[in-house]
């Protein structure tokens, strides 16, 4: 005979209902927070994965900031190079005028004055600073990229430029150092735009015996300079394209990470609700049956 003692009956009933209530509470918590994991021990593997994903996302956020600042620098560089190209075109026009044999020397001298102005503008553009206040064309230097001493413009920056991390091991050069944009070779000798414009201005203002010939000579050099600057612009454009590509990739990655986070650590609301409903039904049923059974004492029947 299995005799069920009264104490055992109550203990079993309270334990069963306590279990059901605890499960219902857990489900309610999942629905309330939208998270399946409250503590790591709820699912250690998923929790470890969630931490890695969180780190990936945080680093991707920094990559995004870095990429935005690199993009800004490249846009500034692009604008500056565009201005330089306009400036060279204007200088070529002036050189063409000056090369005309019908002009007299004083007319050439006034053209030379304008060329001198262009040379000064070029120096200002080459010393443009970026948003953080660093020389756009100066590499890693702390001060200006170019300086003028005794009529000669010299490069003060470094030849190297720091790359910026775009994530996934990809990097980009967020700009261009001066020599890459402004120095070129004419014939066999290397020169730069500052020397060409400065030389032209000096020649037109009486520094040369045959200014018209100097102007004709300078036109070739200016063509080479324009080539160099437009090439640099193309490179900068390509880098911006690369950044855009990486941004797209990062967006896709972030979507995938978010999806994985939801599937790894998110609660399935529909399933949890159904489960909760089931749990409540069972709990109600066991409460009702407990009350019925507890009232079923032989003492009630003894009169």
């Amino acid at each position: 005979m299995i005799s069920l003692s009264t104490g055992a009956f109550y203990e079993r009933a309270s334990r069963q209902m306590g279990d059901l209530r605890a499960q219902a509470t857990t489900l309610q918590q999942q629905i309330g927070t939208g998270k399946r994991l409250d503590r790591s021990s709820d699912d250690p593997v998923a929790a470890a994965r969630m931490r890695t994903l969180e780190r990936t996302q945080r680093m991707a956020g920094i990559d995004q900031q870095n990429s935005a600042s690199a993009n800004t620098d490249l846009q500034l560089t692009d604008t500056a190079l565009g201005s330089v190209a306009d400036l060279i075109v204007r200088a070529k026009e002036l050189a063409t005028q000056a090369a005309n044999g019908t002009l007299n020397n004083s007319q050439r001298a006034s053209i030379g004055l304008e060329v001198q102005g262009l040379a000064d503008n070029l120096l200002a553009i080459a010393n443009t600073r970026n948003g953080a206040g660093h020389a756009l064309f100066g590499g890693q230097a702390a001060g200006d990229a170019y300086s003028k001493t005794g009529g000669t413009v010299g490069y003060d920056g470094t030849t190297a430029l720091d790359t910026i991390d775009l994530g996934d091991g990809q990097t980009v050069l967020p700009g261009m150092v001066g020599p890459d944009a402004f120095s070129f070779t004419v014939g066999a000798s290397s020169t730069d735009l500052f020397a060409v414009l400065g030389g032209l201005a000096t020649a037109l203002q009486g520094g040369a015996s045959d200014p018209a010939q100097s102007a004709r000579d300078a036109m070739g050099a200016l063509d080479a300079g324009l080539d160099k600057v437009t090439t640099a612009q193309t490179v900068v454009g390509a880098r911006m394209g690369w950044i855009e590509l990486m941004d797209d990739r990062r967006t896709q990655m972030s979507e995938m990470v978010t999806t994985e986070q939801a599937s790894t650590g998110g609660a399935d609301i529909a399933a949890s609700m159904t489960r909760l409903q089931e749990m409540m039904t069972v709990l109600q049923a066991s409460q009702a049956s407990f009350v019925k059974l507890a009232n079923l004492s032989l003492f009630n029947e003894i009169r």
Partner: protein
Amino acid sequence: MASDLLAIAASGARAARGALDVTAQNIANAASDGYVRRTARMEEVSAAGGQMRMGDLSLSGVRISGIQRNADMFRQSEVRRTTADSSRGAAELAGLQNVQAAVEQSGVYSAVVGFEASLQALTADPVDPAMRAEVIASAQAMTNKFNIAAGSLDSAGEGLRFNAQAGVDQANVYGGELARLNLRIGRAGADSSDRATLLDQRDLLLGKLSDIADISTSFGPDGSVRVGLGAGGATDFVTGGTAATLTMATATDGTVSFQAGGNAFTPSGGLLAGSANALVEVAGTLGQLDTLADSMAAAFNTVQTGGITPAGSPGQPLFSGSGAGGITTALTDGAMLATAPAGAAIGSRDASNLAAMRQALESGGTASGVNRLLFDVSSKVAGREVTQGALDAIASSASVALEEQAGVDLDTEAANLIRFQQAFQASGRAMQVASTIFDTLLGIK
């Protein structure tokens, strides 16, 4: 004729009264802790006829020969064994949950990631003062989080040791009580209700004791118990009327060991075993956290001191102190970060040393180390939770099984009430018959 109808009926009424008393006692104690259902054992009283009068009726009625205690020794020892297991599991689980909370909720992992992120952000402009200040701030946040985690682990250990000490104190009280009970049980009369009460108390104390440590018991013929501790119960705890004193010793790493009367023993169940196991985990986790903090600091400082600051001076160590509890951020000024390599110009934006710092953190595996530590701890907790669920179920089914066998069933008692009431009434009726017979005899004229 040696029989006496009135006396027989009176003995029946007495026995039924006694049985009713026992039933009422059972009903009254239906909810008492450790109460074992009693049954009144009845015995016929008769005597053989005297010499030469073997054929005579010699009936003397009934008597209550003893109060029987319906305790099943096997089920009781099962309850003790499973209780010790489940209480060990519970203590261990609670300790591990505290360890997990200490490492997880202190936010060490996200602080390490935050430090890495600030270094990565600095690559956009290595000389930007705001970003440099951010690196210092996140380094401070990280060292603080390490300190908090170590502090939380320490207090988790403190709590575990407190619990274990409380368990030891409690066990000493129970041990002394058992020794006293052993003496009294020896003196109580066999099958007396006094004895049954003492045995109830003895079993209740043994049950409480097995909550604290796994015990092995052996019972003497007089009902006294010997309690042993440790492997195979080899270490004496309660023997006869004497109880050894339990003591707890704490090692330098915070783990604990136990002695009974000067003899070392290792509990494998109960609160003491659970606390001791959890303390080993606390010490292990703290050790791993210390290693992570130290190796991170060493790797970073090596790179930092190898570079130069924007002002051109050689880098000073960023982290000082040792261990997760002692690590601090030594620098407070972002300008002291040596992002440029040695030999770079003053104010240089050359970030190759910054890249080396990030590389050192990455390859040093600080973030992944903390992640792994968390994974280790949390998977231990998850595993223990499953085990604990099973141990709990086993312990509860053992105690329900004992309760079913030894506990009071009110329905049975109600039936007994009716039965013994009827027996009492029937004996009364027998007395009435005896009286009628006497009246008949006396009425003969």
